[in-house]
Protein backbone atom coordinates (compact mmCIF):
# COMPACT_ATOMS: atom_id res chain seq x y z
CA UNK A 1 0.00 0.00 0.00
CA UNK A 2 2.95 2.34 0.50
CA UNK A 3 3.29 2.47 -3.28
CA UNK A 4 0.04 4.43 -3.59
CA UNK A 5 0.67 8.00 -4.74
CA UNK A 6 -1.11 10.91 -3.04
CA UNK A 7 -4.54 11.33 -4.50
CA UNK A 8 -5.16 14.39 -6.66
CA UNK A 9 -8.64 14.61 -5.20
CA UNK A 10 -9.70 13.23 -1.85
CA UNK A 11 -13.12 13.79 -0.37
CA UNK A 12 -13.79 12.69 3.19
CA UNK A 13 -17.35 12.39 4.43
CA UNK A 14 -18.68 15.53 2.72
CA UNK A 15 -22.09 16.76 3.84
CA UNK A 16 -24.17 19.55 2.34
CA UNK A 17 -27.70 20.78 2.93
CA UNK A 18 -29.80 23.34 1.14
CA UNK A 19 -32.06 24.52 3.94
CA UNK A 20 -33.57 21.36 5.41
CA UNK A 21 -32.85 19.25 2.37
CA UNK A 22 -29.67 17.24 2.80
CA UNK A 23 -28.20 16.89 -0.68
CA UNK A 24 -24.89 15.24 0.18
CA UNK A 25 -24.92 12.73 3.01
CA UNK A 26 -21.31 11.76 3.44
CA UNK A 27 -19.43 11.53 0.17
CA UNK A 28 -15.97 10.00 0.28
CA UNK A 29 -13.87 9.26 -2.76
CA UNK A 30 -10.35 9.41 -4.13
CA UNK A 31 -9.06 10.17 -7.59
CA UNK A 32 -5.38 9.47 -8.22
CA UNK A 33 -3.23 11.62 -10.51
CA UNK A 34 -3.92 10.73 -14.12
CA UNK A 35 -7.13 8.93 -13.27
CA UNK A 36 -10.54 9.59 -14.75
CA UNK A 37 -13.55 9.07 -12.52
CA UNK A 38 -17.10 9.26 -13.74
CA UNK A 39 -19.99 9.97 -11.41
CA UNK A 40 -23.28 8.56 -12.60
CA UNK A 41 -26.70 8.57 -11.05
CA UNK A 42 -30.24 9.84 -11.37
CA UNK A 43 -30.90 13.59 -11.40
CA UNK A 44 -31.15 15.07 -7.94
CA UNK A 45 -28.72 12.52 -6.55
CA UNK A 46 -26.21 15.26 -5.67
CA UNK A 47 -23.57 14.60 -8.35
CA UNK A 48 -23.43 18.16 -9.63
CA UNK A 49 -23.61 19.64 -6.15
CA UNK A 50 -20.65 17.53 -5.11
CA UNK A 51 -18.70 18.65 -8.16
CA UNK A 52 -19.44 22.29 -7.30
CA UNK A 53 -18.29 21.64 -3.73
CA UNK A 54 -14.95 20.42 -5.03
CA UNK A 55 -14.00 23.87 -6.29
CA UNK A 56 -16.06 25.55 -3.61
CA UNK A 57 -18.70 27.09 -5.84
CA UNK A 58 -20.90 25.62 -3.12
CA UNK A 59 -19.86 25.61 0.50
CA UNK A 60 -19.90 22.38 2.45
CA UNK A 61 -21.35 21.85 5.90
CA UNK A 62 -19.15 19.03 7.09
CA UNK A 63 -16.32 16.93 5.78
CA UNK A 64 -13.12 17.67 3.95
CA UNK A 65 -12.12 17.98 0.33
CA UNK A 66 -8.43 17.91 -0.56
CA UNK A 67 -7.15 18.80 -3.99
CA UNK A 68 -3.47 18.16 -4.55
CA UNK A 69 -3.09 17.81 -0.78
CA UNK A 70 -4.64 21.21 -0.04
CA UNK A 71 -7.82 21.52 1.99
CA UNK A 72 -10.35 23.38 -0.16
CA UNK A 73 -12.28 26.33 1.20
CA UNK A 74 -11.13 26.17 4.79
CA UNK A 75 -8.42 25.92 7.38
CA UNK A 76 -8.38 23.05 9.83
CA UNK A 77 -8.04 24.19 13.42
CA UNK A 78 -9.03 22.54 16.70
CA UNK A 79 -11.15 19.94 14.99
CA UNK A 80 -13.14 22.51 13.06
CA UNK A 81 -12.84 23.90 9.55
CA UNK A 82 -12.73 27.68 9.42
CA UNK A 83 -13.99 29.16 6.17
CA UNK A 84 -11.40 30.98 4.10
CA UNK A 85 -11.76 34.38 2.49
CA UNK A 86 -12.76 34.82 -1.14
CA UNK A 87 -9.18 35.58 -2.21
CA UNK A 88 -7.71 32.42 -0.71
CA UNK A 89 -10.46 30.27 -2.21
CA UNK A 90 -9.83 31.83 -5.62
CA UNK A 91 -6.20 30.87 -5.35
CA UNK A 92 -6.96 27.20 -4.81
CA UNK A 93 -9.57 27.23 -7.58
CA UNK A 94 -6.85 27.99 -10.12
CA UNK A 95 -5.64 24.41 -9.71
CA UNK A 96 -8.92 23.10 -11.07
CA UNK A 97 -10.62 23.69 -14.37
CA UNK A 98 -14.36 23.38 -14.61
CA UNK A 99 -16.59 22.73 -17.59
CA UNK A 100 -20.30 23.47 -17.22
CA UNK A 101 -23.39 21.92 -18.68
CA UNK A 102 -24.37 25.22 -20.32
CA UNK A 103 -20.79 26.12 -21.35
CA UNK A 104 -21.00 29.55 -19.66
CA UNK A 105 -18.62 31.14 -22.13
CA UNK A 106 -18.29 34.90 -21.78
CA UNK A 107 -20.56 36.13 -24.59
CA UNK A 108 -19.04 39.61 -24.81
CA UNK A 109 -15.58 38.27 -25.61
CA UNK A 110 -14.25 36.48 -28.66
CA UNK A 111 -13.14 32.87 -28.40
CA UNK A 112 -9.54 34.00 -27.97
CA UNK A 113 -10.66 36.56 -25.39
CA UNK A 114 -12.37 33.82 -23.41
CA UNK A 115 -9.21 31.73 -23.41
CA UNK A 116 -6.78 34.44 -22.32
CA UNK A 117 -9.08 36.09 -19.76
CA UNK A 118 -7.99 33.92 -16.84
CA UNK A 119 -4.28 33.66 -17.66
CA UNK A 120 -3.92 37.41 -18.27
CA UNK A 121 -6.15 38.81 -15.53
CA UNK A 122 -5.98 36.17 -12.81
CA UNK A 123 -2.53 34.68 -13.29
CA UNK A 124 -1.13 37.96 -14.65
CA UNK A 125 0.77 36.27 -17.45
CA UNK A 126 2.08 38.36 -20.35
CA UNK A 127 -0.50 38.53 -23.09
CA UNK A 128 1.73 37.00 -25.77
CA UNK A 129 2.32 33.91 -23.65
CA UNK A 130 -1.40 33.52 -23.00
CA UNK A 131 -2.26 34.00 -26.67
CA UNK A 132 0.31 31.43 -27.75
CA UNK A 133 -1.03 28.85 -25.34
CA UNK A 134 -4.62 29.70 -26.30
CA UNK A 135 -3.86 29.04 -29.96
CA UNK A 136 -2.20 25.74 -29.14
CA UNK A 137 -5.27 24.73 -27.13
CA UNK A 138 -7.65 25.80 -29.88
CA UNK A 139 -5.71 23.62 -32.29
CA UNK A 140 -5.99 20.79 -29.81
CA UNK A 141 -9.79 21.04 -29.66
CA UNK A 142 -9.94 21.56 -33.43
CA UNK A 143 -11.11 25.17 -33.53
CA UNK A 144 -8.09 27.01 -34.90
CA UNK A 145 -10.10 29.11 -37.33
CA UNK A 146 -12.65 30.28 -34.73
CA UNK A 147 -10.51 32.47 -32.49
CA UNK A 148 -12.12 35.72 -33.63
CA UNK A 149 -15.69 34.46 -33.43
CA UNK A 150 -18.06 35.26 -30.62
CA UNK A 151 -19.53 32.31 -28.71
CA UNK A 152 -23.04 32.91 -30.12
CA UNK A 153 -21.69 32.27 -33.60
CA UNK A 154 -20.61 28.74 -32.70
CA UNK A 155 -22.56 25.50 -32.41
CA UNK A 156 -23.11 24.00 -28.97
CA UNK A 157 -20.43 21.40 -29.52
CA UNK A 158 -17.93 24.04 -30.59
CA UNK A 159 -18.84 26.22 -27.60
CA UNK A 160 -18.25 23.34 -25.22
CA UNK A 161 -14.88 22.62 -26.82
CA UNK A 162 -13.97 26.29 -26.34
CA UNK A 163 -15.08 25.98 -22.72
CA UNK A 164 -12.78 23.00 -22.25
CA UNK A 165 -9.91 24.94 -23.82
CA UNK A 166 -10.69 27.91 -21.56
CA UNK A 167 -10.42 25.68 -18.49
CA UNK A 168 -7.18 24.14 -19.79
CA UNK A 169 -5.70 27.59 -20.43
CA UNK A 170 -5.27 27.95 -16.66
CA UNK A 171 -3.09 24.81 -16.70
CA UNK A 172 -5.12 23.00 -14.05
CA UNK A 173 -4.09 19.80 -12.33
CA UNK A 174 -7.64 18.54 -12.11
CA UNK A 175 -10.54 18.95 -14.52
CA UNK A 176 -14.14 18.91 -13.38
CA UNK A 177 -16.88 18.23 -15.92
CA UNK A 178 -20.48 18.95 -14.96
CA UNK A 179 -22.67 17.07 -17.45
CA UNK A 180 -20.67 18.49 -20.37
CA UNK A 181 -22.82 16.92 -23.08
CA UNK A 182 -26.30 17.14 -21.55
CA UNK A 183 -27.24 20.41 -23.24
CA UNK A 184 -26.02 19.35 -26.68
CA UNK A 185 -27.90 18.15 -29.71
CA UNK A 186 -27.26 14.42 -30.13
CA UNK A 187 -25.10 14.80 -33.23
CA UNK A 188 -22.75 17.17 -31.39
CA UNK A 189 -22.09 14.97 -28.37
CA UNK A 190 -19.42 12.93 -30.11
CA UNK A 191 -17.04 15.81 -30.85
CA UNK A 192 -17.03 16.91 -27.19
CA UNK A 193 -16.55 13.38 -25.87
CA UNK A 194 -13.66 12.80 -28.24
CA UNK A 195 -11.91 15.95 -26.98
CA UNK A 196 -12.44 14.69 -23.42
CA UNK A 197 -11.10 11.28 -24.37
CA UNK A 198 -7.95 12.82 -25.83
CA UNK A 199 -7.55 14.82 -22.67
CA UNK A 200 -7.88 11.70 -20.55
CA UNK A 201 -5.30 9.90 -22.66
CA UNK A 202 -2.89 12.79 -22.23
CA UNK A 203 -2.87 12.00 -18.52
CA UNK A 204 -5.19 14.68 -17.14
CA UNK A 205 -6.91 13.89 -13.86
CA UNK A 206 -10.65 14.20 -14.43
CA UNK A 207 -13.85 14.00 -12.44
CA UNK A 208 -16.79 13.75 -14.80
CA UNK A 209 -20.47 13.94 -13.93
CA UNK A 210 -22.23 12.44 -16.91
CA UNK A 211 -25.03 10.35 -18.29
CA UNK A 212 -22.83 8.94 -21.06
CA UNK A 213 -22.46 5.32 -19.98
CA UNK A 214 -20.42 4.60 -23.12
CA UNK A 215 -17.88 7.25 -22.21
CA UNK A 216 -17.64 5.95 -18.65
CA UNK A 217 -17.10 2.40 -19.87
CA UNK A 218 -14.51 3.39 -22.47
CA UNK A 219 -12.51 6.09 -20.76
CA UNK A 220 -12.98 6.03 -16.98
CA UNK A 221 -10.70 4.20 -14.62
CA UNK A 222 -13.27 4.45 -11.88
CA UNK A 223 -17.02 4.81 -11.81
CA UNK A 224 -19.11 5.97 -8.89
CA UNK A 225 -22.85 5.64 -8.78
CA UNK A 226 -24.63 8.23 -6.67
CA UNK A 227 -28.16 8.11 -5.37
CA UNK A 228 -29.82 10.11 -2.61
CA UNK A 229 -26.67 11.99 -1.66
CA UNK A 230 -24.42 8.98 -1.18
CA UNK A 231 -22.17 6.93 -3.41
CA UNK A 232 -23.98 3.61 -3.50
CA UNK A 233 -21.29 1.81 -5.41
CA UNK A 234 -17.91 2.55 -6.87
CA UNK A 235 -15.23 0.58 -8.63
CA UNK A 236 -13.91 -0.23 -12.07
CA UNK A 237 -16.30 0.38 -14.99
CA UNK A 238 -16.58 -3.33 -15.59
CA UNK A 239 -17.57 -4.02 -11.97
CA UNK A 240 -20.12 -1.25 -11.69
CA UNK A 241 -21.54 -1.06 -15.18
CA UNK A 242 -21.57 -4.66 -16.25
CA UNK A 243 -21.42 -6.93 -13.24
CA UNK A 244 -23.08 -5.02 -10.46
CA UNK A 245 -25.02 -6.86 -7.87
CA UNK A 246 -26.29 -3.65 -6.30
CA UNK A 247 -30.03 -3.21 -6.62
CA UNK A 248 -29.97 0.58 -7.06
CA UNK A 249 -27.14 0.48 -9.60
CA UNK A 250 -28.97 -2.07 -11.71
CA UNK A 251 -32.21 -0.15 -11.53
CA UNK A 252 -30.48 3.06 -12.67
CA UNK A 253 -28.57 1.39 -15.49
CA UNK A 254 -31.70 -0.28 -16.78
CA UNK A 255 -33.25 3.17 -17.33
CA UNK A 256 -30.45 4.87 -19.25
CA UNK A 257 -29.31 4.06 -22.78
CA UNK A 258 -25.76 2.81 -22.92
Amino acid at each position, binding site marked *: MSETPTPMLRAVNVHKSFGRHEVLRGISLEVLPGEVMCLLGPSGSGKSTFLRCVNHLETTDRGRIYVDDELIGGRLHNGKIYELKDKAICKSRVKMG*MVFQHFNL*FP*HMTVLGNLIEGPVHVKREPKEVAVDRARTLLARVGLTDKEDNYPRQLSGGQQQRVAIA*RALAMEPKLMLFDEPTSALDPELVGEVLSVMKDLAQSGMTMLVVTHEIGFARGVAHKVGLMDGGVIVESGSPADVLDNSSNERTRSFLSKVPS
Partner: protein
Amino acid sequence: MTDDAEQVVPLRHYGRWISGAIILFLLWLLVLAFARGQIDWPVVGEFFMAPVLLKGLGNTILVTCLSILIGLILGVIFAIMRLSSNPVTNMVASLYIWLFRGTPVYLQLLIWFNLALVFPEINLGFWHARMVDVMTPFLAALLGLGINEGAYMTEIVRGGIISVDRGQLDAASAIGMTRLMAMRRIVLPQAMRVIIPPVGNEFIGLLKTSSMASAIAYTELLHRAQLIYFVNAKVMELLMVAAGWYLIVVTILTIIQTYIERYFSRGQSHETEPSLLSRLWVNLIRRRRAAGGAAAQQGGYR
Protein backbone atom coordinates in the same frame (compact mmCIF):
# COMPACT_ATOMS: atom_id res chain seq x y z
CA MET B 1 -37.21 23.88 -60.50
CA THR B 2 -37.00 27.63 -61.12
CA ASP B 3 -40.39 27.48 -62.86
CA ASP B 4 -42.19 26.66 -59.60
CA ALA B 5 -40.30 29.24 -57.53
CA GLU B 6 -42.75 32.14 -57.83
CA GLN B 7 -41.58 35.42 -56.38
CA VAL B 8 -43.35 36.56 -53.23
CA VAL B 9 -44.78 40.09 -53.38
CA PRO B 10 -44.70 41.62 -49.89
CA LEU B 11 -48.04 42.72 -48.44
CA ARG B 12 -48.83 46.34 -49.44
CA HIS B 13 -49.71 48.47 -46.43
CA TYR B 14 -52.12 51.01 -47.97
CA GLY B 15 -53.53 51.90 -44.54
CA ARG B 16 -50.14 53.16 -43.45
CA TRP B 17 -49.86 55.50 -46.41
CA ILE B 18 -53.33 56.94 -45.81
CA SER B 19 -52.86 57.46 -42.07
CA GLY B 20 -49.41 58.91 -42.73
CA ALA B 21 -50.88 61.44 -45.13
CA ILE B 22 -53.59 62.45 -42.64
CA ILE B 23 -51.07 62.98 -39.87
CA LEU B 24 -48.81 65.03 -42.12
CA PHE B 25 -51.78 67.22 -42.99
CA LEU B 26 -52.67 67.77 -39.30
CA LEU B 27 -49.05 68.56 -38.55
CA TRP B 28 -49.00 71.10 -41.34
CA LEU B 29 -52.09 72.79 -39.86
CA LEU B 30 -50.38 73.01 -36.48
CA VAL B 31 -47.25 74.54 -37.97
CA LEU B 32 -49.41 76.98 -39.90
CA ALA B 33 -51.24 78.00 -36.73
CA PHE B 34 -48.00 78.77 -34.92
CA ALA B 35 -46.55 80.56 -37.93
CA ARG B 36 -49.53 82.89 -38.11
CA GLY B 37 -49.91 83.24 -34.33
CA GLN B 38 -48.57 86.10 -32.27
CA ILE B 39 -45.01 84.95 -32.13
CA ASP B 40 -42.28 87.19 -33.37
CA TRP B 41 -40.28 84.51 -35.25
CA PRO B 42 -37.43 86.82 -36.26
CA VAL B 43 -36.80 87.37 -32.54
CA VAL B 44 -36.50 83.61 -32.10
CA GLY B 45 -33.90 83.53 -34.84
CA GLU B 46 -32.13 86.50 -33.36
CA PHE B 47 -31.76 84.94 -29.92
CA PHE B 48 -31.09 81.41 -31.09
CA MET B 49 -27.32 81.92 -31.22
CA ALA B 50 -27.17 84.61 -28.53
CA PRO B 51 -23.94 84.11 -26.52
CA VAL B 52 -25.80 84.53 -23.21
CA LEU B 53 -28.10 81.66 -24.03
CA LEU B 54 -25.32 79.53 -25.47
CA LYS B 55 -23.44 79.91 -22.21
CA GLY B 56 -26.58 78.82 -20.37
CA LEU B 57 -26.81 75.83 -22.70
CA GLY B 58 -23.18 75.02 -21.94
CA ASN B 59 -23.94 75.11 -18.22
CA THR B 60 -26.96 72.86 -18.71
CA ILE B 61 -24.89 70.31 -20.60
CA LEU B 62 -22.04 70.55 -18.10
CA VAL B 63 -24.16 69.97 -15.02
CA THR B 64 -26.12 67.19 -16.76
CA CYS B 65 -23.01 65.30 -17.86
CA LEU B 66 -21.31 65.61 -14.48
CA SER B 67 -24.48 64.63 -12.60
CA ILE B 68 -24.97 61.56 -14.78
CA LEU B 69 -21.35 60.62 -14.16
CA ILE B 70 -21.79 61.00 -10.40
CA GLY B 71 -25.06 59.09 -10.68
CA LEU B 72 -23.44 56.22 -12.58
CA ILE B 73 -20.53 55.90 -10.18
CA LEU B 74 -22.84 55.98 -7.16
CA GLY B 75 -25.23 53.64 -8.96
CA VAL B 76 -22.57 50.99 -9.61
CA ILE B 77 -21.22 51.23 -6.06
CA PHE B 78 -24.61 51.05 -4.36
CA ALA B 79 -25.92 48.36 -6.71
CA ILE B 80 -22.99 46.12 -5.80
CA MET B 81 -23.57 46.95 -2.13
CA ARG B 82 -27.25 46.20 -2.53
CA LEU B 83 -26.48 42.76 -3.98
CA SER B 84 -23.78 41.97 -1.46
CA SER B 85 -24.35 39.28 1.12
CA ASN B 86 -23.09 41.68 3.78
CA PRO B 87 -26.21 42.87 5.65
CA VAL B 88 -24.61 46.17 6.68
CA THR B 89 -23.68 47.37 3.18
CA ASN B 90 -26.98 46.02 1.95
CA MET B 91 -28.92 48.16 4.40
CA VAL B 92 -26.84 51.27 3.76
CA ALA B 93 -27.65 50.97 0.06
CA SER B 94 -31.35 50.49 0.72
CA LEU B 95 -31.39 53.51 3.02
CA TYR B 96 -29.71 55.64 0.36
CA ILE B 97 -32.28 54.69 -2.25
CA TRP B 98 -35.15 55.23 0.17
CA LEU B 99 -33.94 58.67 1.18
CA PHE B 100 -33.08 60.15 -2.20
CA ARG B 101 -35.80 58.54 -4.24
CA GLY B 102 -38.36 59.39 -1.62
CA THR B 103 -38.00 63.18 -1.73
CA PRO B 104 -38.45 65.56 -4.68
CA VAL B 105 -35.29 66.68 -6.49
CA TYR B 106 -36.49 70.24 -6.21
CA LEU B 107 -36.53 69.96 -2.42
CA GLN B 108 -33.10 68.30 -2.41
CA LEU B 109 -31.68 71.13 -4.51
CA LEU B 110 -33.04 73.67 -2.03
CA ILE B 111 -31.57 71.75 0.91
CA TRP B 112 -28.10 71.60 -0.64
CA PHE B 113 -28.23 75.24 -1.57
CA ASN B 114 -29.32 76.29 1.92
CA LEU B 115 -26.98 73.96 3.76
CA ALA B 116 -25.21 77.01 5.15
CA LEU B 117 -28.19 77.52 7.44
CA VAL B 118 -27.35 74.26 9.22
CA PHE B 119 -23.58 74.25 8.87
CA PRO B 120 -22.35 77.85 8.54
CA GLU B 121 -18.76 76.71 8.52
CA ILE B 122 -16.85 73.68 7.31
CA ASN B 123 -13.94 72.72 9.47
CA LEU B 124 -11.88 69.70 8.53
CA GLY B 125 -9.04 70.58 10.87
CA PHE B 126 -6.48 71.29 8.16
CA TRP B 127 -8.94 73.27 6.06
CA HIS B 128 -11.93 75.39 6.87
CA ALA B 129 -14.22 77.69 4.95
CA ARG B 130 -17.59 79.36 5.05
CA MET B 131 -20.32 77.19 3.63
CA VAL B 132 -21.84 80.03 1.58
CA ASP B 133 -18.55 80.34 -0.28
CA VAL B 134 -18.28 76.64 -0.92
CA MET B 135 -21.87 75.82 -1.77
CA THR B 136 -22.16 77.74 -5.04
CA PRO B 137 -25.28 77.25 -7.15
CA PHE B 138 -23.18 75.04 -9.43
CA LEU B 139 -22.03 72.75 -6.61
CA ALA B 140 -25.50 72.61 -5.08
CA ALA B 141 -26.99 71.69 -8.46
CA LEU B 142 -24.31 69.08 -9.05
CA LEU B 143 -24.75 67.44 -5.65
CA GLY B 144 -28.53 67.65 -5.72
CA LEU B 145 -28.93 66.24 -9.20
CA GLY B 146 -26.04 63.77 -9.07
CA ILE B 147 -26.86 62.16 -5.73
CA ASN B 148 -30.55 61.97 -6.56
CA GLU B 149 -29.69 60.42 -9.91
CA GLY B 150 -27.47 57.88 -8.16
CA ALA B 151 -30.48 56.48 -6.32
CA TYR B 152 -32.27 55.79 -9.60
CA MET B 153 -29.11 54.49 -11.25
CA THR B 154 -28.64 52.03 -8.40
CA GLU B 155 -31.88 50.33 -9.32
CA ILE B 156 -31.06 50.41 -13.03
CA VAL B 157 -27.60 48.91 -12.49
CA ARG B 158 -28.98 46.34 -10.08
CA GLY B 159 -31.52 45.27 -12.68
CA GLY B 160 -28.73 44.95 -15.23
CA ILE B 161 -26.59 42.84 -12.94
CA ILE B 162 -29.48 40.54 -12.07
CA SER B 163 -30.21 40.04 -15.76
CA VAL B 164 -26.81 38.40 -16.32
CA ASP B 165 -26.96 34.62 -16.15
CA ARG B 166 -25.68 33.22 -12.84
CA GLY B 167 -23.55 30.76 -14.75
CA GLN B 168 -21.33 33.68 -15.76
CA LEU B 169 -20.36 34.29 -12.16
CA ASP B 170 -19.73 30.55 -11.72
CA ALA B 171 -17.53 30.48 -14.80
CA ALA B 172 -15.62 33.55 -13.68
CA SER B 173 -15.11 32.07 -10.20
CA ALA B 174 -14.04 28.77 -11.71
CA ILE B 175 -11.10 30.43 -13.48
CA GLY B 176 -10.08 31.94 -10.16
CA MET B 177 -11.56 35.43 -10.29
CA THR B 178 -12.47 37.16 -7.07
CA ARG B 179 -16.06 38.40 -6.79
CA LEU B 180 -15.06 41.96 -7.47
CA MET B 181 -13.00 41.12 -10.54
CA ALA B 182 -15.75 38.89 -11.89
CA MET B 183 -18.13 41.80 -11.44
CA ARG B 184 -15.85 44.21 -13.26
CA ARG B 185 -14.61 42.01 -16.08
CA ILE B 186 -17.52 39.65 -16.70
CA VAL B 187 -20.83 40.70 -15.17
CA LEU B 188 -20.90 44.49 -15.57
CA PRO B 189 -19.88 44.54 -19.25
CA GLN B 190 -22.78 42.20 -19.96
CA ALA B 191 -25.13 44.12 -17.69
CA MET B 192 -24.32 47.25 -19.70
CA ARG B 193 -26.45 45.99 -22.56
CA VAL B 194 -29.48 46.10 -20.27
CA ILE B 195 -28.34 49.22 -18.41
CA ILE B 196 -27.67 51.52 -21.38
CA PRO B 197 -31.22 52.09 -22.68
CA PRO B 198 -32.64 53.27 -19.31
CA VAL B 199 -29.48 55.31 -18.68
CA GLY B 200 -30.07 57.06 -21.98
CA ASN B 201 -33.55 57.75 -20.72
CA GLU B 202 -32.20 59.10 -17.44
CA PHE B 203 -29.72 61.28 -19.31
CA ILE B 204 -32.46 62.88 -21.35
CA GLY B 205 -34.66 63.21 -18.26
CA LEU B 206 -31.87 64.81 -16.29
CA LEU B 207 -31.09 67.27 -19.08
CA LYS B 208 -34.58 68.62 -18.59
CA THR B 209 -34.70 68.23 -14.82
CA SER B 210 -31.56 70.35 -14.64
CA SER B 211 -33.80 73.29 -15.50
CA MET B 212 -35.03 73.05 -11.89
CA ALA B 213 -31.62 74.31 -10.87
CA SER B 214 -32.82 77.70 -12.04
CA ALA B 215 -34.62 77.75 -8.67
CA ILE B 216 -31.27 77.99 -6.91
CA ALA B 217 -29.99 80.61 -9.34
CA TYR B 218 -27.83 78.24 -11.34
CA THR B 219 -27.51 79.95 -14.70
CA GLU B 220 -28.52 77.14 -17.01
CA LEU B 221 -30.40 77.52 -20.28
CA LEU B 222 -33.93 78.08 -19.00
CA HIS B 223 -32.74 80.45 -16.28
CA ARG B 224 -30.94 82.57 -18.89
CA ALA B 225 -33.99 82.59 -21.15
CA GLN B 226 -36.13 83.77 -18.24
CA LEU B 227 -33.69 86.51 -17.34
CA ILE B 228 -33.93 87.79 -20.90
CA TYR B 229 -37.71 87.74 -21.19
CA PHE B 230 -38.11 89.45 -17.83
CA VAL B 231 -36.43 92.37 -19.56
CA ASN B 232 -37.75 92.34 -23.13
CA ALA B 233 -41.13 90.65 -22.52
CA LYS B 234 -40.64 88.29 -25.49
CA VAL B 235 -41.76 85.34 -23.35
CA MET B 236 -42.89 82.83 -25.93
CA GLU B 237 -40.06 83.65 -28.31
CA LEU B 238 -37.39 82.85 -25.72
CA LEU B 239 -39.19 79.74 -24.54
CA MET B 240 -39.19 78.59 -28.16
CA VAL B 241 -35.45 79.14 -28.36
CA ALA B 242 -34.94 77.09 -25.20
CA ALA B 243 -37.26 74.35 -26.48
CA GLY B 244 -35.34 74.26 -29.75
CA TRP B 245 -32.02 73.84 -27.98
CA TYR B 246 -33.31 71.11 -25.66
CA LEU B 247 -34.63 69.22 -28.68
CA ILE B 248 -31.34 69.55 -30.53
CA VAL B 249 -29.32 68.24 -27.60
CA VAL B 250 -31.76 65.38 -26.98
CA THR B 251 -31.56 64.40 -30.65
CA ILE B 252 -27.78 64.30 -30.50
CA LEU B 253 -27.92 62.26 -27.28
CA THR B 254 -30.30 59.77 -28.87
CA ILE B 255 -27.94 59.25 -31.78
CA ILE B 256 -24.98 58.74 -29.45
CA GLN B 257 -27.03 56.26 -27.43
CA THR B 258 -27.67 54.14 -30.52
CA TYR B 259 -23.95 53.79 -31.12
CA ILE B 260 -23.19 52.95 -27.49
CA GLU B 261 -25.92 50.32 -27.50
CA ARG B 262 -24.46 48.80 -30.61
CA TYR B 263 -21.04 48.61 -28.98
CA PHE B 264 -22.28 46.82 -25.87
CA SER B 265 -24.44 44.36 -27.77
CA ARG B 266 -21.44 42.93 -29.61
CA GLY B 267 -21.42 39.17 -29.53
CA GLN B 268 -25.19 39.09 -29.09
CA SER B 269 -27.25 37.51 -31.80
CA HIS B 270 -29.93 40.17 -32.09
CA GLU B 271 -28.60 43.54 -33.14
CA THR B 272 -30.07 46.86 -32.10
CA GLU B 273 -33.18 47.84 -34.02
CA PRO B 274 -32.34 50.14 -36.90
CA SER B 275 -33.73 53.62 -36.43
CA LEU B 276 -36.87 54.77 -38.18
CA LEU B 277 -34.83 56.94 -40.53
CA SER B 278 -32.49 54.19 -41.60
CA ARG B 279 -35.48 51.89 -42.10
CA LEU B 280 -37.11 54.48 -44.34
CA TRP B 281 -33.84 54.77 -46.23
CA VAL B 282 -33.66 51.05 -46.78
CA ASN B 283 -37.31 50.65 -47.67
CA LEU B 284 -37.86 53.62 -49.92
CA ILE B 285 -34.61 54.44 -51.56
CA ARG B 286 -32.68 51.23 -51.81
CA ARG B 287 -35.70 49.30 -52.88
CA ARG B 288 -36.22 51.73 -55.71
CA ARG B 289 -32.62 51.40 -56.73
CA ALA B 290 -32.67 47.64 -56.86
CA ALA B 291 -34.94 48.06 -59.88
CA GLY B 292 -37.51 45.38 -60.13
CA GLY B 293 -37.01 44.83 -56.43
CA ALA B 294 -35.92 41.24 -57.00
CA ALA B 295 -33.63 41.29 -54.02
CA ALA B 296 -35.34 43.89 -51.87
CA GLN B 297 -33.35 43.49 -48.70
CA GLN B 298 -35.83 43.73 -45.93
CA GLY B 299 -33.98 45.60 -43.20
CA GLY B 300 -30.75 45.14 -45.09
CA TYR B 301 -28.55 46.52 -42.33
CA ARG B 302 -26.49 43.44 -41.71
